[in-house]
Each structure stands twice: as structure tokens, then as C-alpha cells.
């Protein structure tokens, strides 16, 4: 057959028509849509047997109970544990997104040894055996040279079996340099020690209080045990409890409070004393308590009445005297008043005078160790290990002064002064730090004046990080010995921050370890065994798990079943036995604190001429600012008035912005005596004119792309200010300058 153009065309047309009429196009259409409904690159989670595991969250000191939902061996959801004494089902956003940490890209998957220059991010994988023997060798060498005291250990906590293992190790090894990361707890411990003679944690009976006078404490911004605070705050809404929030910026707590009283930043102590003045003058105090259980009241009374009249306090604080008087009266007349301090989440210890002044208010209304008041909560004494045997090297090492100066003549009462460590290393006056271990902390990010901290770390020749995640400190370590993630390990969680009764929570493996990690407790035990001698003797346990089980004793069965051990019948001892001071009474004016000296505000860095503004960091529950950074979900919840792209917003009052010629969203250069950074302007009516505020928790250089490189780390702009009495960091801010960029 001859194929001409015409028959070819007919063939084409006929073919097209034929195909169109056949089922083929319909089948293809259908198939392609089915394909789009199950694209191979869109994951389909595997189904399986659902189960629940109870554990405890250790991402912050809050100690919430969690229930993890599992499908076969995968953890798929973290929920708050119902009927848990801390959180009763609720959970914060960080706790809720814990699985993103467990399975996330920031995990350190195997022991790593630095290759090339420190901080360059080049690592080689090494075996656990090699890693442990390398550490053992370094420590052994130092010990041999009699330099055991040059080993430091920064830990996020000093309570519970794991930190106690660190402490035990250092003791037998011979170094006094175990340093806990700072917080308001430090100041409170000191206050309790000096005023009540107690070695205890502060416990606050919020559930039974009905008038909360908060000196800037972020009750709903993450202060204390956050979920418990949220619950208490809601309970006050139901029962008519009142919250008075005193701070210069309208925080979420201030917004939720019944009354927000803006105050000149850093003058909280003066206000507390001014309130005391009215209470004393109008005899509104608890005379029974003052007369029977306190000491030094008369001196203190004279001091307060002399110096803190409402008018002079009004001048200092910027709060008018009628407000102060009314505030004092309503506080004293409330049936269950409670005063608390610790700015924001209580991330910095603050001025000791402020803490004692606030605590004295509680004493004035007889609110110590009483329902609805403040308790001195001793740590539950479940850790009773055999005494360690120290050899001569250890004894000599332990005799050395601490590098941070805690317990020294200058600061005899303070236990840990991490803020002083960089200076001590950088000045080189005492002795060098030859090795540093970091666990449960991320000092390179969380410590103020990051530059100085970095410089100090650079001087330490051997840094070991136990972090489960590639955080800033791990990035700058020589060796990373990754701990199991908190959902892969056992750990006891002693009394969460601020709880009025002791509780022991249990963190337990929810899933098998996902990577080649090791429990830090096991690493310490292995290390001790590798070093032999007294060290090995002091760590006779086969494993950390065995150690924990043995330590818990009869409680183990209960804690395994319930997820926590509580002391429901815990009651503070009678008043007569409450105070362990020399007088056996509550000390209103312990002479060590110099609290009878007239109020001097904490001198923050910077001069007024060059730095006309005040910069304050603020805490947000949506921005984890401690050792942990925000997982992706929590980052997603951050408002676009806080972070936009990689730019952080600085909050400024429209009035101040106007004076500086700054508009909403404009880029500006923020400078402080410590550093400078580019920020975006956010006009916020809720901030005091003259003040600017930046959030904590941003500006990470480590972790994953969801967190790193966004915003700035406010710690880079603020330097520590030593409290004259405690030596703790008392800085609440820094002077600053803001100019169009």
C-alpha cells in the first residue's frame, strides 16, 4: 500500500481518535491521580502496636511527668503524665517536642574526637574504649603531676545520682572544681542559709497562696517548674487569687496578672524594703512570728523605717507612693500572701540583697514554712553511698581553693560561681585549668560575655563534652562522649525547682538508644575503673543502672510503677525546729549580707552618655534558653514580632523609638560596652520608655539549621556583674545604644 500524505494524516487522526475513545486515557488519568495520592517521597508512617511509657522530662529543672506514646518501637508522641504531682497532664512546648531531639539531626551519634583546629567542626569517630582510655590517660597524667585540682567539671545540676557521681569522681580524683550552672536558686539557697540556717532549696506553696507579689518572676514565662506555675496561675483565676507583677516590661506574666506595676529596672530591692516600711509602720506584720521566731528585727526595723519611706522609694523605683502604700497593705492583709523574686525564668541569680529583702517580706507576714508560704526543702536523702577513700593526691587536690572563688574568704557562703570562672582562667592568677568536663550544660552559649567565655575555654587544653547534641560547647570540645538522650536513659530527677515537697521523678528509657551513645553515669564508672586505685574502689557498681537501682532501694519498685516517688505526708518541722541559725531564729538582718547598708542598685555596665538606653534580656517560654535550644516545633511557635527570617526584634517603646527616629521593622545597630549586633525594631507599648529588650534563646551557632544562625545571643551583649556579697552574677541588663543601621 502506498502511503501518501493523505492516508498518513488519516492514519494519525484515526489513531488519535481511536486512542481517545479507548479506555487507555481514562486509565492513565486515574492512575496518575492515584500516584499523586501516594507519592513515594511523602512518608507513610508504619502502623503497629500502640503502647505508653511513663517517664520524666529532664529538658528543664521542672521535672514534669511524661507519658510517651509508642507504635511498636517508635516513640510517636510525648504527653504530660496525668495525675503527676508536678504537671497533671499538661506539658510545655519544649517537653512536647522532645521527640524532635531524640530523632533529630543535632544528636551526636558516636564518640567524636576533634580533628584540626578547635571549633572547626571536623571530627573523627572513635570507639568508646579509645575515648575512655584517652580521657583516663589525660586525667592520670595530670594526677601524676599533682595537678588533679586543675580539672574542672561544669554540670547543669548538683542533685540526683548522676551529678553526685561527678562529685564523687572529682572528690576521689582530687579536684574541688565541680561547678553548677547558675540560677536564682543560688541566691535563694544563700538567703535560706543566711536567714534560716538551712541547706535547702526554696519551696513555694503556690497552690495554697492567694496573693502573689512577684518581683519580676515570670510565673507564666517559665519561672520555677513551668507547668506547675501555669497550673497554679490558672487555679488563682478560679479561686480569686491575686498576682501583682512588678517589672518594667509587660511580660506575659504581667499581662496575665491582676495588676502590673512597672518599676525602674534593678530597683526591686528598694521596693521590697519600701513595702516592709509600710507594713512595719502600720503594724501589719505577723507579730507572733516576729516576736517568737525572729532575730534582728529591731535593727532591721530601724533601718527600714529610717531609709525606706514611701516617698524616697517612689523616687528610686518610679512607682508612686500611694501605689506602694496600697500594695503593702493589700499584701499584708491578704490571708495567704507570698512574695517571690528571680527575673523572668530566674536564669540569673541576681542581687542577694534583693533576694533577702523579698524573703524578709515573707517573714514579716509570718510566711515561713507555713501553708501557702515559703519552705526550706531539704533534698531527699536517698543517696547514701559508702564513704569514699581518698588517697594523698586526692586529699591534696581537694585542699586547693576553688578556681571560681566560691567558698573563699571573699565569698565564703557561695557554693558555685561559674560567672567568675572565665575571669579566673583568663587572668591566670590562681592556677590554670588543664581539663574541663561539661555535662548537662552549654556554658559557651548560656554564660554572659560570650567572648570572654570563649577566650577562657580556648585556654583550657582539654575539653570533654558529654552532650547528646552538637551544642556550642560540644562544638568547641576536644572530645564528645555523647550521653543517651533523656528518652533513652534512666535517671532520677530530684525535687523540681520550687516544689514545696520533695518528689523524686524517674526518667527512663522509652526507646532503645538510637545511636552509639553511652549513659554519662556509665562513662564515669568506666573511667574510674580505667584509672584504677581509689577511683576504681569508689565506683564498685557494674553500671549506672545498677547504681541507681541500688541507691533507690525499696523505692525502686514504686518509682518504676508510678513514675515518681512523692512524700505526700511531708510537713515542715515545727517553727521551733525550723531555723538552724546561731540564734535558732529567723535572721532579718544577717550581718554577713550587709543588708543594713542603704540600698545601692547593682551597677550595670556602661555609662549613660555613650549608652543612653537600658538593654534587658527577657525570657519567653517559647524560647528555650538553657542548655537546650528550641527544637523545630518550638521555633515554629515563635512570633514574627520576635524573629523574622534571621533577624531578631528588639522591643522598644514607640516614644523612645520616636526619639531615636526608628520605625517598626527597621534595621538598627545595637551596641553595648560588651558587643554589638544588628537587630530589627519592634515598637511595643508595653515596655518602659528608655528601655529596650531582647529575647534570650536565639543566636545559636550550633544545633541544626532550624535553630542556628537566627537572631542574636543576648549573652554576647551583656557582661556579668559580681554581687558584692555572694559573688554571683547580679546583672539584670546592660546600658545600650541603638542607632539606625
Amino acid at each position, binding site marked *: 500500500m502506498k502511503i501518501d500524505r*493523505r492516508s498518513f494524516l488519516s492514519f494519525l487522526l484515526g489513531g488519535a481518535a481511536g486512542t481517545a475513545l479507548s479506555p487507555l486515557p481514562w486509565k492513565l*488519568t486515574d492512575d*496518575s*491521580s492515584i*500516584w*499523586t*495520592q501516594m507519592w513515594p517521597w511523602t512518608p507513610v508512617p508504619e502502623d503497629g502496636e500502640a503502647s505508653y511509657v511513663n517517664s520524666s522530662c529532664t529538658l528543664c529543672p521542672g521535672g514534669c511527668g511524661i507519658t510517651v506514646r509508642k507504635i511498636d518501637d517508635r516513640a510517636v508522641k510525648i504527653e504530660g503524665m496525668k495525675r503527676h504531682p508536678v504537671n497533671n497532664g499538661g506539658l510545655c512546648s519544649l517537653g512536647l517536642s522532645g521527640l524532635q531531639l531524640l530523632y533529630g539531626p543535632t544528636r551526636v551519634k558516636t564518640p567524636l574526637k576533634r580533628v584540626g583546629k578547635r571549633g572547626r567542626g571536623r571530627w573523627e569517630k572513635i570507639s568508646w574504649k579509645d575515648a575512655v582510655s584517652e580521657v583516663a590517660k589525660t586525667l592520670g597524667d595530670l594526677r601524676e603531676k599533682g595537678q588533679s585540682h586543675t580539672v574542672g567539671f561544669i554540670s547543669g545540676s548538683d542533685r540526683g545520682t548522676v551529678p553526685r557521681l561527678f562529685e564523687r569522681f572529682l572528690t576521689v580524683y582530687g579536684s574541688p572544681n565541680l561547678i553548677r550552672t547558675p540560677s536564682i536558686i543560688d541566691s535563694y539557697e544563700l538567703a535560706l542559709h543566711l536567714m534560716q540556717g538551712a541547706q535547702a532549696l526554696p519551696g513555694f506553696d503556690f497552690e495554697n497562696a492567694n496573693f502573689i507579689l512577684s518581683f519580676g518572676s515570670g510565673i507564666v514565662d517559665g519561672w520555677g517548674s513551668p507547668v506547675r506555675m501555669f497550673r497554679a496561675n490558672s487555679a488563682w483565676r478560679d479561686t480569686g487569687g491575686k498576682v501583682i507583677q512588678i517589672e518594667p516590661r509587660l511580660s506575659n506574666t504581667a499581662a496575665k496578672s491582676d495588676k502590673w506595676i512597672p518599676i525602674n529596672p534593678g530597683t526591686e530591692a528598694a521596693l521590697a524594703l519600701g513595702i516592709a516600711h509600710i507594713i512595719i509602720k502600720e503594724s501589719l506584720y505577723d507579730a507572733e512570728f516576729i516576736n517568737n521566731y525572729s532575730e534582728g528585727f529591731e535593727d532591721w526595723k530601724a533601718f527600714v523605717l529610717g531609709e525606706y519611706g514611701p516617698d524616697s522609694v517612689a523616687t528610686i523605683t518610679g512607682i508612686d507612693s500611694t501605689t506602694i502604700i496600697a500594695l503593702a497593705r493589700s499584701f499584708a492583709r491578704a490571708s495567704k500572701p507570698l512574695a517571690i523574686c528571680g527575673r523572668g525564668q530566674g536564669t540569673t541569680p541576681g542581687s542577694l540583697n534583693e533576694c533577702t529583702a523579698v524573703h524578709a517580706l515573707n517573714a514579716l507576714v509570718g510566711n515561713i514554712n507555713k501553708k501557702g508560704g515559703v519552705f526550706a526543702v531539704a533534698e531527699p536523702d536517698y543517696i547514701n553511698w559508702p564513704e569514699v577513700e581518698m588517697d594523698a593526691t586526692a586529699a591534696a587536690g581537694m585542699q586547693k581553693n576553688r578556681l571560681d572563688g566560691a567558698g573563699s574568704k571573699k565569698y565564703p557562703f557561695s557554693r558555685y560561681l561559674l560567672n567568675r570562672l572565665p575571669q579566673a582562667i583568663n587572668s591566670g592568677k590562681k592556677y590554670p585549668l588543664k581539663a574541663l568536663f561539661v555535662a548537662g550544660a552549654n556554658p559557651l552559649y548560656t554564660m554572659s560575655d560570650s567572648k570572654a567565655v570563649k577566650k577562657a575555654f580556648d585556654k583550657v587544653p582539654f575539653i570533654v563534652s558529654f552532650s547528646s547534641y552538637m551544642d556550642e560547647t560540644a562544638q568547641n570540645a576536644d572530645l564528645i562522649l555523647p550521653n543517651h538522650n533523656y528518652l533513652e536513659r534512666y535517671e532520677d530527677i530530684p525535687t523540681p525547682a520550687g516544689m514545696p515537697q520533695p518528689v523524686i521523678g524517674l526518667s527512663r528509657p522509652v526507646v532503645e538508644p538510637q545511636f552509639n551513645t553511652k549513659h554519662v553515669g556509665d562513662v564515669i564508672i568506666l573511667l574510674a575503673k580505667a584509672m584504677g586505685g581509689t577511683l576504681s574502689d569508689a565506683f564498685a557498681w557494674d553500671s549506672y543502672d545498677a547504681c541507681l537501682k541500688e541507691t533507690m532501694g525499696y523505692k525502686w519498685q514504686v518509682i518504676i510503677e508510678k513514675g515518681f516517688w512523692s512524700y505526700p505526708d511531708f510537713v515542715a518541722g515545727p517553727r521551733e525546729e525550723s531555723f538552724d541559725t546561731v540564734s535558732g531564729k529567723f535572721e532579718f538582718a544577717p550581718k554577713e549580707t550587709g543588708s543594713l547598708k542603704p540600698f545601692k542598685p547593682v551597677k550595670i555596665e556602661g555609662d549613660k552618655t555613650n549608652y543612653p538606653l537600658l538593654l534587658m534580656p527577657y525570657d519567653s517560654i517559647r524560647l528555650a534558653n538553657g542548655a537546650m535550644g528550641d527544637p523545630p516545633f518550638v521555633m515554629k511557635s515563635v512570633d514574627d514580632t520576635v524573629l523574622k527570617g534571621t533577624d531578631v526584634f528588639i522591643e522598644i517603646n514607640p516614644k523612645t523609638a520616636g526619639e531615636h527616629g526608628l520605625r517598626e521593622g527597621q534595621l538598627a545597630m545595637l551596641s553595648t560596652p560588651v558587643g554589638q549586633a544588628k537587630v530589627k525594631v519592634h515598637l511595643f507599648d508595653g515596655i518602659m520608655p528608655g528601655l529596650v529588650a531582647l529575647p534570650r534563646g536565639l543566636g545559636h551557632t550550633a544545633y541544626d539549621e532550624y535553630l542556628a544562625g537566627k537572631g542574636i545571643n543576648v549573652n554576647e551583649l551583656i557582661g556579668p556583674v559580681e554581687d558584692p556579697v555572694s559573688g554571683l552574677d547580679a546583672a539584670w541588663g546592660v546600658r545600650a545604644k541603638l542607632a539606625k543601621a
Partner: protein
Amino acid sequence: MDSALIPRGVKRCPFPQFILFIAIVGAVLLWGVYAMLLCWFKGLNQTNMNDFYGFALWIWADLAVIAVGGGAFFTGLLRYIFGKDDLKNIINYAVLIGFICYSSALLILAIDIGQPLRGWFIFWHANVHSMLTEVAFCLSCYFGVLTIEYIPLVLENRQINKVPFFHHLGHNMHEIMAVFAATGAFLSFFHQGSLGGVAGVLYGRPFAYREGLFIWPWTFFLFTWSAAACGPCFTILVTKITETVTRKKLVKDTAIQLLAKISGWMILTYSIAKTADTWYWATVTVPSLGQTLMDFYSNNPFYGIWILILEIAICGFIPAFILITKKGRKNSAALWIAVFLAVTGVCINRWVMVLQIMAIPVLTFENWVLYLPSWQEIATTILPLAYGVILIAISYRYLPVFPNEPELNPIETLPAEEEEAVEPSVELEQELKPAEA
């Protein structure tokens, strides 16, 4: 080179010039195709649309091309149903423009949806209560009608017409064109209306929401009306542009004048209706929802009351007055201005009924959100324009689109190479009186 394909009795530019022109416009087309492929393969993240702007430039383009494409149905309606015979001289072109507009709209829709391969679900799983379903059905059906109306023109190509089957097919289709046109008008009425309904039923958006008649909000009728009013203006505008480009008179004035006059009265009545609707909406509907007219035209850097004035007064009443007066529409410059304003007006209307709706906050604690399209959106919106120009160029070159052309532009010397078949006059005769044949 391609002279065998060129209709008799007309003169066309040399083939290389034609190819060059196609190549230039084709390059723009390819740019659009590239953007289209990006959107299909990488997804709609290629656009600047967002969760506040689910509808954006593309939906506007869709609404606008369908509105201006309304010239096809309305001219068809006048020509075949109301027997306005003068319009036979422009109906081919109106159909062609409509065909381009509607095929473009369908293409843009295919790019606009997030799951193009599932687009047919709108038919298969139709929700008959959704205005968009109505739009999809009527739009596709009416596109079918336009194809049916366009086919006979294609079949009149000199070479195709030689095939007896095609010759007869074209003839037969001409014969019953009134039936198709009537169906088309019916479908058009509904989908133009439904497009208005798309916005009008949004009772969650006070700016869009209109009360109405039974299930149809007033925008339903206003959209049909405005499309019928302004569509012919677009036909005239494109005709005028074509005449300018080809430097030839292609359509007799009678047809243009008639269309312009009808269009003028339609625009006038539409503008009055639109004013009444806006008035009622601004004074009754909006206040009942706790808002005022100016809420929609203030507190943002772009949308001011000017856009409402521009749409109704400047692009509504002014062209209407020009077109209804004999003096106005007879004046070439005024006619140009009038049709341009009318087309602009209907496009602005579609713009506000898509993009301004998205821009306005309804929740008291949200703010205005403005939007700029990405280059991919712009390229894919220009794509149909390029495609339209190419299709017009090809159709103009090879098909007897303008029956008046040989008459208005007599060629002194006939082309040397003569071919057999139909006499030009006969061809014209057939074109002129299809219904009587």
C-alpha cells in the same frame, strides 16, 4: 512558500517575516512554558502566593480573560439568536478571541491548582453547591462550544476544505450553529455568573459577600452583565489592534458600530446596577457586619477609594457615555479610549473581587496583607498572551477570519499560481449566509 495555505483574495506578509514574528513571540511563550513547568514540577512554592493569598494573580487572570472573552458568547447570542446580521463580519474573530481566552483560562487553572493530576476530581467528585464546580463545568463545556464554533473556520482553510469530509463537516456545523450558540450562551450565562458567585458567596469575607436572589448573590448577575458588556469591547479592542498591526481595515464599521453601541448600553446599565449594588452593600450589608466602607479602603499602602472610583466612574460610566453617543463611537480616538477603559474596568473589577478580598483583614487582630506576584506567576500569565498572539497570527494568515477583508482590501494583481477549487466569491457567499445554505 506557504501561499497554498493562504486564503484567496488576501495579501499576507512574506513567510520569513511571519516566521520571525512567530519566533519572537514564541520566545516569550517558551519563557512562560518554562515557568509553567517549574510550577508543575517544583510545586506552587514557585509563586508568591501564601496562606492569606490562596487566590492571587492567576485567579484574577482567569476571571479577567473569561470576562473579556465574554465577547464571544455575547456576540454569538446577538448574531445567532437575536439575528443581528451585521455582526457576521466580526463573529469569527470574536469566536477566535473567545477560544483563546477560554483555553488560556483552562491552562492557567491547570497551573494554579496544587494537584493538577487530580484536577478532574472537580468533575468526578463534584460538589454541586460550589460556585467553582459550576464554573468548572460550564467553563469546560463552553470551551467545547467555542471549539465547535472555531472548527468550521479552521475547516475553511484552503487545503483542508479540499477534503470532502471536512468541507461537509464545516458546512453542517454552520447550519446548526444557532443551536450551539444558544447552548453556549446558556453555559456562558452560568459560568460568568458563577465566577461572580465565587466571590459573592464568601459570607466570611464582608468585602466579597453580597446578598442576592435564591442561591445567587448579586455578583452572579453583575459578572454576567459586565462580561456581556465589556467582552465585546475587548473584541473591538483586539480587532482595532489587529487592524493597526496589519495596517488594513478588516471589519466594516457597521459591525463595530453596532457592537459598540450595544456594548455601551450594556456598560451603562451595568454601571448603574453596580453602583446600586455597591451602595446597598456599603450602607446596609457592611454596617450590619460591624464595618464601614472605608475600612476596606484605608490603613494600607495600596487600596484606596480611588480604585472604586476608577472602576465604576472612570472605567464604567465614561466609556458607557462615549459608546452610547453616536458622535462618541464614531470618533476613532474616543472609541479607542472607550473600549480600553471598559476592558480596564472589568479587569479592575475582577482584581478587587479576587485580590483585594484576600488583602483585607477580617479578624480585628490581623492586618492588611499585600502581595507581589513572583516572576513565575507573571510569566505564566503572559504565556497565554503570547499563545493568543501566535494563534491569532496563524489564524489570520491561513484562515478567512475576516470575511470583509478581500472586499475592503482589494488586491490589484491576483497571485500568479492559481489553483482549482472554490471561487473566492462562492467562499464568501457561503460565509455570509450559512444559515440559508
